[in-house]
């Protein structure tokens, strides 16, 4: 969903390179799913935890309540999916921000591995951390 610009206006060599890379649609699907999940969940979570609770606009939940929500199997699952897909959303979009936005075209491979590698490591870390919550 919502990816009308990326991939357009590339140099012929870059197009050939992308055609070779058959995992591009798969990465795009992860990006797209991440965009949906991030759009639905992050604004409300960031507003409450990052602004409303620290600024005392609203009463934050107690430690027990927050722990109960996060450690509930459904809570863990939602948080894992949110972290996993959001990170791959970031990886894909940030990779193209560097490519199209900042015109960094000579470090393709390095950026590719740093972005998706970062997403893989972050996803594994999220899984581990959500697993070991008491």
């Amino acid at each position, binding site marked *: 969903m919502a990816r*009308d610009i990326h991939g357009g206006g590339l140099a012929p060599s870059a197009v050939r390179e992308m055609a070779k890379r058959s995992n591009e649609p798969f990465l795009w699907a992860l990006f797209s799913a991440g965009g949906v999940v991030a759009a639905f969940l992050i604004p409300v979570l960031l507003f409450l935890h990052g602004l409303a609770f*620290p*600024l005392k606009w609203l009463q934050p939940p107690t430690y027990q309540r927050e722990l109960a929500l996060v450690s509930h199997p459904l809570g863990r699952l939602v948080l894992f999916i949110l972290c996993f897909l959001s990170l791959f959303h970031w990886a*894909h979009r940030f990779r193209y921000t560097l490519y199209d936005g900042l*015109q960094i075209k000579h470090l393709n491979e390095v950026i590719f591995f740093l972005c998706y590698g970062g997403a893989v490591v972050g996803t594994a870390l999220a899984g581990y951390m959500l697993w070991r919550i*008491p």
Partner: protein
Amino acid sequence: MESEVSETPIYTPYHPRWYRARVSTYWWSRRWAYLKFILRELSSIFVAYFVVLTLLQIRALTQGPDAYARFQERLKAPVLVALNALAFFFVLFHAVTWFNLAPKAMNLRMRGKRVPDLLIVLPNYVAWLAISTVVAWLLLR
């Protein structure tokens, strides 16, 4: 008879080349539409920032009530409040641009006709409101 051909061949300077105008690094600063594009792209950084913040919060929760209280106290620092406000603006921008682009990416058809954009955009906003309400209710009740 001596050959006039030299050892190293001389190439003509007229070999074909692509003409490609050099694009400035700051090309996106010239027009509002371009700036909007780059702001939308930069929103991904704040999506990743949110994941980091969430993982830190989960770590504090795992460590116990004291560690969690310290984490909550740290979030009151003006620098972090300002950062979170900026991040909130960007994720909001991401959500709005994402929902508004949905009909352009989906191109649904019914009885041979394109489904009007509003019919795709509106349910997205309704779902966004519903999900946000449920999350807020879970955290505030």
